[in-house]
C-alpha cells in the first residue's frame, strides 16, 4: 500500500504519512462497518485519495505536476509497486548501508529504532541516514520504476545482495543477547518470496530464495533448550523443517536449469547437501568441497575460502584443514573476522594442540560480540585450558 501511494506522490515522506492516515481511518471505519472485502485495495484507495487531497492543497502541487502520476490507467497490482519500491531503495546511486536501511524501513516495515538496533547505531544516526537517502532520491531524481530489461539482471543483483545481507544479519546477529533476529529473517524471506513471485524466470532470484529456505529450515535446532549455541554437527535433524527443505530443494533444481549456476544457487546446493544428509558423519564432504570449488570461481572471496577450508578439514582431517587456513591468516579482509580464529581453534583442539587452541579461542572471543556465540567459545576455551 505504501508502494502504491509512492506511485502517486513520488515523495516517500508524504506517502508514509498518508499510509499511516489510511490505517488510522481503517481502524475507525472497520470497527463500525466491518472489514471490506478487499482491505488492501480499500487502504490503497484511501491513502491515494488522501495524498491527492494534500497535494492539491499545497502550492507545490502545480510545480510538482510533471512528477506526479495522475489518473493512471488500470493501476498495477500492489505487488508491482513493491517491486518498483525495492528497485528504488536498492538503486546503485545509494550507498549500500542506505539501501539496506531504506529496504528494511519501507518494505519490511521495521521502525527506525529497530533498524538502528539491527546495525548497531544510534536511532538518530539511522534516522539521519534514512533522511539523507530520501533526499538523494528526490534531488537526483532516482526514478521509481522497475529497470529496463537490459539493466535488469545487474540491478537485481544489487537487490539480492541487500536481501541476503538482511537475512544474514538476522540469522546470526552480529551482537546482542540473541542469536537470531526473527524480524530480519522473516523480512528477508518475505522479500525473496516477493521477488520470486514477480520474477519467476530469474534463476538468481530462485537461487537466493532456495538458499534462505534451506538455511532457515534449521531454525528450531540452532539453540538448545537453555539457549546455548548448537552446532550443525549436533543439531537434531528430525526437527528441521522438512516442508521448507523440500521447497528449497525444488527451487534449487529450478535455478540450476539455466546456462550457468549463480553464486546463490551454489550456496543453496551446499545447504541442500547438509539438509539431505541424515547425520553429520554421513555428510558428503567431497561434494561440499567440490561445490566450494565452483563457488570460489563465481565469487572469489576470503569468506568462501574460509568455509571451503572448514569443509576440507572435514573431508581430509584437521591437519589438512589447518593447512588450508594458513594462507588466510595474512588476508586483511579477515583480520577482524572471528570465524577464522574459531575455525583454527577448532582444528587445533581436534589435533590435541591445546595451548595453541586456547590462544585461538581467546582471539575469537576478542572478535565476537554476540553473547550466544561468546558463551559457546568460552565453553570451548574451558575445555582446552
Amino acid at each position, binding site marked *: 500500500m505504501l508502494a502504491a501511494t509512492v506511485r502517486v506522490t513520488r515523495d516517500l515522506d508524504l506517502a508514509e504519512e498518508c499510509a499511516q492516515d489510511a490505517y488510522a481511518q481503517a481502524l475507525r471505519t472497520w470497527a463500525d462497518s466491518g472489514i471490506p472485502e478487499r482491505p488492501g485495495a480499500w487502504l490503497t484507495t484511501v491513502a491515494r485519495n488522501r495524498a491527492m487531497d494534500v497535494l492539491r492543497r499545497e502550492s507545490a502541487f502545480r510545480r510538482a505536476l*510533471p512528477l506526479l502520476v495522475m489518473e493512471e490507467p488500470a493501476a498495477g497490482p500492489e505487488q508491482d509497486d513493491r517491486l518498483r519500491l525495492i528497485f528504488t531503495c536498492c538503486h546503485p*546511486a545509494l550507498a549500500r548501508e542506505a539501501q539496506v536501511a531504506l529496504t528494511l524501513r519501507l518494505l519490511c516495515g521495521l521502525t527506525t529504532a529497530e533498524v538502528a538496533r539491527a546495525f548497531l547505531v544510534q536511532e538518530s544516526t539511522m534516522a539521519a541516514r534514512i533522511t539523507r537517502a530520501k533526499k538523494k532520491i528526490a*534531488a*537526483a*531524481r*532516482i*526514478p521509481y520504476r522497475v*529497470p529496463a530489461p537490459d539493466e535488469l539482471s545487474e540491478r537485481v543483483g544489487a537487490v539480492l545482495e541487500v536481501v541476503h545481507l538482511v537475512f544474514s544479519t538476522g540469522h546470526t546477529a552480529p551482537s546482542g543477547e540473541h542469536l537470531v533476529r526473527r524480524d530480519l529473517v522473516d523480512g528477508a524471506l518475505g522479500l525473496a518470496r516477493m521477488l520470486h513471485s514477480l520474477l519467476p524466470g530469474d534463476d538468481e532470484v530462485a537461487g537466493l530464495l532456495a538458499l534462505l529456505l534451506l538455511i532457515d529450515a534449521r531454525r528450531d535446532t540452532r539453540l538448545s533448550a537453555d539457549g546455548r549455541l548448537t552446532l550443525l554437527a549436533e543439531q537434531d535433524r528430525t526437527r528441521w523443517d522438512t516442508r521448507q527443505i523440500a521447497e528449497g530443494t525444488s527451487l534449487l533444481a529450478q535455478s540450476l536449469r539455466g546456462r550457468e549456476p549463480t553464486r546463490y544457487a551454489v550456496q543453496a546446493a551446499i545447504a541442500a547437501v547438509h539438509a539431505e544428509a541424515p547425520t553429520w558423519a554421513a555428510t558428503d564432504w567431497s561434494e561440499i568441497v567440490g561445490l566450494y570449488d565452483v563457488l570460489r570461481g563465481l565469487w572469489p572471496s576470503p569468506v568462501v575460502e574460509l568455509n571451503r577450508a572448514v569443509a576440507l578439514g572435514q573431508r581430509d582431517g584437521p591437519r589438512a584443514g589447518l593447512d588450508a587456513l594458513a594462507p588466510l591468516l595474512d588476508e586483511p579482509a579477515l583480520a577482524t573476522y572471528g570465524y577464522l580464529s574459531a575455525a583454527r581453534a577448532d582444528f587445533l583442539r581436534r589435533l590435541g594442540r591445546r595451548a595453541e587452541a586456547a590462544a585461538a579461542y581467546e582471539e575469537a572471543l576478542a572478535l565476537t560480540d554476540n553473547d550466544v556465540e561468546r558463551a559457546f567459545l568460552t565453553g570451548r576455551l574451558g575445555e582446552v585450558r
Partner: protein
Amino acid sequence: MAKYLVLIYGDEKEWANSSPQEREQTERAHRAFQSAAGAALLGGNELQPPATATSLRAGSASRPTVTDGPFLETKEVLGGYYLLEAADLDEVIALAGQLPEVAASHSGVEIRPVREHG
C-alpha cells in the same frame, strides 16, 4: 525534467601524455556522445589544464586573495563538463556512461543535480 552537471575528472599526466591517435579517438567519442544526447545537451566544454587556473579566496579588507592554480589540489583534475537535461538519474547515467573517460581506468565522471531556483 531536471538539469544535471556532468563533471569529467582524470589524471592530468595521463591526459597530457596521450598520443595523437588517442586524442582523436577521444574527440570522436565525445562527438558520438553529443549526438546521442541530442536535445538533452544544454552545453559543455573542455577546460584548459589546471595550471592555467586562478583561484580566489577571502583576503584582507575588501580584496580577495588571488592564487595560481586550481581551488583543490587533487590527483584527479577537472578536465571538462557537460550540462544535461533529463527526466531522471537513470537517463543521465545511460548517457554519461558513454563518455570515453568512464571506460578509461584513470578517469571518471561525477553527476551533480542542479538546484533550480525560482
